[in-house]
């Protein structure tokens, strides 16, 4: 936690060099998946494997959230029977996974991306359209 705040303090002095936007991958339909193609702007900043691993994990998490399994069916039927009032006291499966995703992104930012002057933005803040990666100018990061 303290680590994050000190990174943010450093970042307040850093300028944004560029932003890269990872687009959605619609080849399997309208499910939320992102393209794993490695953008050229990140070539000098981060390992390709690392990046693909992050995106792949995110894709798996979103697939888990949107899975049409027995759990979502039961949740749907139960909710329907109670006229969806059950969602006033219960979190939906999707929301639980979104929390997991938020935690994962923060963890990735703290461990991998921030030390390299990058910042991943949670796609939910961009309407699940893009993963925004902010590239900061390499200034006085103490490495």
């Amino acid at each position, binding site marked *: 936690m303290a680590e994050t705040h000190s990174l943010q303090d450093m970042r*307040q002095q850093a300028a944004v060099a560029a932003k890269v936007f990872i687009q959605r991958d*619609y080849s399997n*339909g309208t499910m939320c998946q992102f393209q794993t193609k490695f953008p050229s702007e990140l070539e000098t900043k981060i390992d390709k494997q690392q990046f693909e691993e992050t995106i792949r994990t995110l894709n798996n998490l979103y697939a888990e959230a949107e899975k049409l399994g027995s759990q979502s069916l039961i949740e749907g039927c139960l909710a329907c029977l109670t006229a969806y009032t059950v969602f006033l006291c219960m979190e939906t499966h999707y929301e639980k996974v979104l929390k997991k995703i938020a935690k994962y992104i923060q963890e990735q930012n703290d461990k991998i991306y921030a030390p390299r002057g990058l*910042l991943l933005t949670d796609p939910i803040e*961009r309407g*699940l359209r893009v993963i925004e990666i902010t590239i900061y100018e390499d200034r006085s990061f103490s490495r």
Partner: protein
Amino acid sequence: MSAVMITRKVRKWEKLPGKNTFCCDGRVMMARQKGIFYLTLFLIIGTCSLFFVFECPYLAVHLSPAIPVFAVLLFLFVIAMLLRTSFSDPGVLPRALPEEANFIEMEIEAANGNVPSGQRPPPRIRNVQINNQIVKLKYCYTCKIFRPPRASHCSICDNCVDRFDHHCPWVGNCVGKRNYRYFYLFTLTLSLLTIYIFAFNIVHVVMRSVDHGFLNTLKETPGTYPLNMNTFLLVCFFTLWSMVGLTGFHTYLISLNQTTNEDIKGSWSGKNRGQNPYSHKNIIKNCCEVLCGPTYPSVTFFSLFLTSFSASFPQKTTAPLIPNEHTPDDVKPSIAAEKSSGPKDDQPPAAMLPPLASPETDAETSIAKNQ
């Protein structure tokens, strides 16, 4: 030159583009024109009240008390579905922020190459392949994004809506990905309720006629009886046919996993029939996906939450602050950085609650005005 600080409470949703109205601390999101929605409410509540007041006592006594009880349950379910459809975010896609819009513009220009002056640039279309079918993604000039498949821009609400079905004035909102199942359940249960009321109306008249004769039935009961009887039957009759028709139509669409928008445009009919890439080619699976699929989160809700941080300039200094449009670029990442870890550390439950729960409301904005 003295600077005057004016503190003004800015409601978060005032910052959101689009023509939606928000109520109840941002919990309720509707279109601007709500007149027909109030009419729908009035018709449903009015007709059902008449039924409960005039018909149910007789039916409860002479037939069974279960009849009014079931009617009440059905009525409550209809109202719940109507309110849920009307008040929830249909799946509005937030507009692209300037950096994203610029990024997309640069990509488009790179793809188009050099267009000779005087010639129109080619239309902004992206082709994607979904399940062996080429789908064209159109660019939305208002929202500055390439619309995801099945999304469409609603001109009434001035938003791009994901899995856009249609804009329904009767519910005062768009029908899209997030509220389609509530809309369908509303039409279905309203049809059932109308059939139920209509049927028991007839039963009531028949039973009274058997006891007292038909003409006497119309005379003997309280003076208003013929009036409300005719109103009943008329409203029920027209509602019944339109609702049953609409429910049938949407059942057909669900079984094929199509939206009203696609059906009207003929995207997957005629020569394209059988090529719908979104359909599972199995009626049960299609119905399950649409009706029992995952409950998608409202990304507008997250925008509302986000706006409170980007609009309220986090540096609480006494120096005159610059309004939002002129916030220098190097301040913005700090806001984004703070924001991206802020709510997740401090208020994860609040950030993840469904839109019907209340997020924080007002943001204080200090605006410096130079005299």
